[in-house]
């Protein structure tokens, strides 16, 4: 993918300043602007409404939710109490957190190293390998599950966090993402560091990593989300209740003989909270990070 030319800042700023003064007063421009606001408002409403619905749901009884009640109720504490008596929340949160955090750190380390290397040290063989990896990206996980399970069973690792985390750590998508982002990494920085006598691993750790922190922030969100929401593989490989993640537990609640909607929605809010928090913490860096990936 090609890099875009550098901006001629002064000309651009002057032009948009000019445009800014001219814009006010033009009825067509104003109409268009109004349309843009309407469009974006609708999009934002549609995007956010289900969240509102979910939060309203946590305050209503199961019966009210089924009737489609869309206003706040008073059952919030009952729902919370039911949830906490039925689910060992601390335990499942701990499991989810360990899996998601350790998984994210390891994925960042291993996959960014590989992405960096694929871009920085190009060779014919490595290019071929990269092309092959892109093809493998498309294989549905369901197809790999049985052989994977056999491997972990032979290694006596079934029902461990290791078994959940390890297969996700080398992520082709994240390698791909870091390779794209590395294209924007100024090679002069590397050359300068080499002249200063830094070894390759030092360049990666002390130069590349700090410069690319936005890219890492964006990747953190993507990987954390994927790990936190991972369903199929943890379902198969985690056997005992005390090792299960919040995603598995909440999902099972929905298929009880007598599903308690209020309690389930309380659980889904709880299960969504950590990814939301991570997103809001890293949000500014996230957009910058995505920017790097598409240059």
């Amino acid at each position, binding site marked *: 993918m090609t890099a875009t030319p550098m901006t001629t800042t002064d000309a651009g700023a002057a032009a948009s300043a000019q445009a800014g003064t001219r814009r006010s007063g033009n009825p067509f421009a104003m109409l268009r602007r109004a349309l843009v606001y309407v469009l974006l*408002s609708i999009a934002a409403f549609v995007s956010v409404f289900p969240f509102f619905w979910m939060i309203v*749901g946590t305050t209503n009884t199961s019966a009210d939710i089924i009737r489609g009640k869309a206003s706040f109720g008073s059952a919030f504490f009952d729902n919370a109490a039911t949830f906490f008596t039925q689910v060992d929340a601390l335990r499942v949160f701990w499991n989810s957190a360990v899996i998601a955090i350790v998984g994210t750190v390891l994925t960042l380390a291993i996959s960014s190293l590989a992405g960096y*290397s694929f871009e920085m040290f*190009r060779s014919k063989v490595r290019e071929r390998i990269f092309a092959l990896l892109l093809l493998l990206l*498309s*294989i549905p996980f369901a*197809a790999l599950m049985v052989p994977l399970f056999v491997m972990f069973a032979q290694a006596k690792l079934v029902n461990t966090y290791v078994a959940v985390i390890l297969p996700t750590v080398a992520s082709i998508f994240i390698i791909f993402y870091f390779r794209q982002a590395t294209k924007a990494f100024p090679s002069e920085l590397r050359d300068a560091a080499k002249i200063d006598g830094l070894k390759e691993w030092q360049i990666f750790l002390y130069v590349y990593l700090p410069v690319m922190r936005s890219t890492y922030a964006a990747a953190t969100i993507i990987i954390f989300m994927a790990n936190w929401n991972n369903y199929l593989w943890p379902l198969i490989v985690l056997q005992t209740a005390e090792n299960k993640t919040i995603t598995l537990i909440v999902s099972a609640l929905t298929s009880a003989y007598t599903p308690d909607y209020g309690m389930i929605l309380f659980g889904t809010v709880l299960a969504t909270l950590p990814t939301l928090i991570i997103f809001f913490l890293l949000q500014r860096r996230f957009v910058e990070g995505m920017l790097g990936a598409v240059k």
Partner: protein
Amino acid sequence: MPQARLDRREHITGWAFIAPALILLGLFMIYPIVWSLWMSFQVGKGMNLSFGGLANIERLTKDAVFQRALGNTFIFFIVQVPIMIGLALLFAVALNDSTLRFRGLFRTAIFLPCVTSLIAYSTLFKSMFATNGVVKNALMTLHLTDGPIPWLTDPFWAKILIIIAITWRWTGYNMIFYLAALQNIDRSIYEAARIDGVPAWARFRYLTIPMLKPVILFTTVISTIGTLQLFDEVQNITQGGPSDATLTLSLYIYNLTFKFMPSFGYSATVSWVIVVLVGILSFIQFLIARDRRSA
């Protein structure tokens, strides 16, 4: 980006940095895939397997359910991907205007859906689109429909629902890529075009689109793979029904392995169909990309 020839040490570093990822991918991806390639020549039930040559391929050609799943996957691909990419582009262009108010708010809101946990998202969509759900109430209040739309119980509408669900969840994600790319584009080109009296639609068509082409290609590839792997939504919202209207290839593989009388050889064959399909699609995309370069 042109790269100087690598020296010996860089070559070694190149391999060393990739090694951890390659070892893990070899273990947890390549090995299971090769295993499943071998399995695709096996026939039999459960653990009683024997070599069947091309019997599974032959079975595939007569399998109406497989053809339905393939057809559905293609419909989702052909209908949903363009809608999503179009909307994402539209929002990105609208949000790229630096004089727009509440940009951050709109951007965050539209991005929010892709941070939801899968379980929250599927529970919400099922309840909102239930026969007497909040969507029906809203549409009837707005007099857009005079009766409930059978979102989940009619083959046609169930497909639409899945398309709505995926679009809801992933439009913001794609939008961020475009937004990031747009911010890279030299503003002065736009202003020059504007001063020359080029209308907005033409600026979009002849300036924005060509400059975003690499990113559009990137997101198209990612969405193509996402569609071919489509599993979470259909498994959790419609279970592939009604009447297999939302059955996808991934869900069919899951059913063959875990729901039906286990015939693992056959489900491995279906997995390999996806690999071959992606191979073909990637090749087409490669040809398009090469055309662009030579033009």
